[in-house]
């Protein structure tokens, strides 16, 4: 054992698997990709038909802002997303909690949710147009339904995962049913519900664009469709950038809420 020549430090193998906050890395990835595209298009290595110059896209964006058209398209889109997903998510959380708490609700609704989940919701748009009208109603309904199912699934999964011993504890101290739900089940399910929201809102954005492409005068989706049919790649990409920014903003907003609400976990 005391072989001195063979003395060496024990190899460290405990690294990784512990996500830490490295926010700047995300920006670097974006910056590098955009810089590569810019260099490629400037040098002619990438032809103008393959990809527009990022600087031209930026210029289009600035024009859009100056002409006020940015808001003409962005405001209706944001409203649709906010209203539709607020409906879908709030009802989804309620139904998910009910499924988590009551066996009969679970037995009745889980198969139904499983049946609705895989339907491409956009296929139902004509139906919604008949039910809720060609205007905003059908778009709200589409986004609401699209965010509803993933929220339900994430929520009842999260409720199932709440530590049973904590619920037993609540019962043993004689807490009312309502208190147990409000003070033990909901906070315990919050991490799972919030990570479900990320998926729900991303689906919401996809459906928003799809709905606007199929029938809207204004909105990011309508703008992209119009640019696409004219093969105006700069404007197409300007629209895509709007969507990406929307996605990043939504994801960051959830991150902020998570850090607030889940401070006890870190």
């Amino acid at each position, binding site marked *: 054992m005391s072989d001195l020549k063979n003395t060496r430090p024990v190899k460290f193998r405990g690294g990784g698997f512990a996500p830490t906050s490295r926010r700047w890395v995300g920006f670097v990835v974006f910056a590098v990709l955009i810089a590569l595209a810019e260099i490629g298009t400037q040098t002619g290595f990438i032809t103008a038909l393959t990809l527009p110059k990022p600087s031209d896209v930026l210029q289009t964006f600035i024009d859009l802002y100056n002409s006020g058209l940015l808001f003409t398209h962005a405001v209706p889109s944001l409203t649709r997303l906010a209203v539709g997903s607020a409906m879908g998510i709030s009802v989804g959380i309620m139904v998910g909690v009910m499924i988590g708490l009551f066996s009969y609700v679970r037995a009745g609704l889980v198969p139904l949710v499983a049946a609705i989940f895989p339907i491409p919701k956009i296929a139902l748009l004509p139906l919604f147009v008949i039910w809720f009208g060609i205007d905003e109603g059908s778009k709200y309904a589409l986004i609401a339904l699209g965010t509803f199912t993933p929220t339900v699934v994430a929520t009842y999964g999260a409720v199932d995962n709440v530590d049973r*011993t*904590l619920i*037993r*504890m609540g*019962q*043993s*101290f*004689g*807490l*009312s049913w309502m*208190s147990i739900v409000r*003070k*033990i089940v909901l*906070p*315990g399910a919050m991490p799972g519900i919030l990570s479900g929201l990320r998926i729900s809102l991303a689906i919401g954005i996809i459906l928003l664009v799809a709905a606007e492409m199929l029938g809207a005068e204004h909105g990011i989706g309508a703008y992209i469709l119009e640019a696409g049919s004219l093969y105006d790649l700069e404007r197409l990409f300007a629209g895509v950038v709007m969507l990406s920014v929307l996605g990043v903003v939504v994801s960051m907003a959830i991150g902020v809420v998570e850090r607030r609400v*889940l401070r*006890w*976990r870190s």
Partner: protein
Amino acid sequence: MDIQLSNINHSYDKFEVLRDINLDIPTGKIICIVGPSGCGKSTLLRLIGGLEQPTSGQVLQLGNAPAGCLNPLTYIFQDFALLPWRTVQGNISLVLEDHGIRGAELQKIIDDVLARTKLTDFANALPKQLSGGMKQRVAIARALAVKPAVMLMDEPLSALDSQTRELLMDDLVSLWSRTPFTAVYVTHNLAEAVRLGHSIVVLSRRPGEIREIVKVDKPLSERKHGDTDLEAQQKYLWDLMRDEARAADAELLNV
């Protein structure tokens, strides 16, 4: 307020867990329950606290809970069962809020139980910041806050290291000496049983039956770590249990 168990039998489906349990739990005494693993100790405690109903037999409450008692039968769990998202204070207020206690009165109770469990400085800490021993003291403080008539403790110290366990046993003894409480204390640790129990109920292996009730007469405050008479009693308990424990161990392998 005494608790009386009469002719308790309990099975899960066809699986018999407890048989013919008759036991009195007198006010102001600590009853320890020991027995081989899987003999139904935790089940018995859940039956006493009304978290489960016995297949046959009754758990009786003799007399009323003393005035001011908010939750007559109060548990202390092996894994503490603290809400990780609430501070020490918040965990205690959780069990008081439902009784309509608010404001200054709430704060007064919280301050009192935190002082009694020496946690005053940690009122605003989150459970993840506390050591195991402190977490269990928070759970004890929470139990004291509802002024229980009977405390039901399921291996409250077995998740802790042996030094912390000694310290917490001293804490429990001094709490009891100041204001005697009634407790049913389940443990597999015979040293804990002879330190804390006024009487020790020895259960047989599953289906759990009462084999013997051993009285320990020495006053709690005079018992010390390593007392020879306590050790003699501990050895006596172990002799009672050894064969049962061995048989229980072999049985689990065949399940």
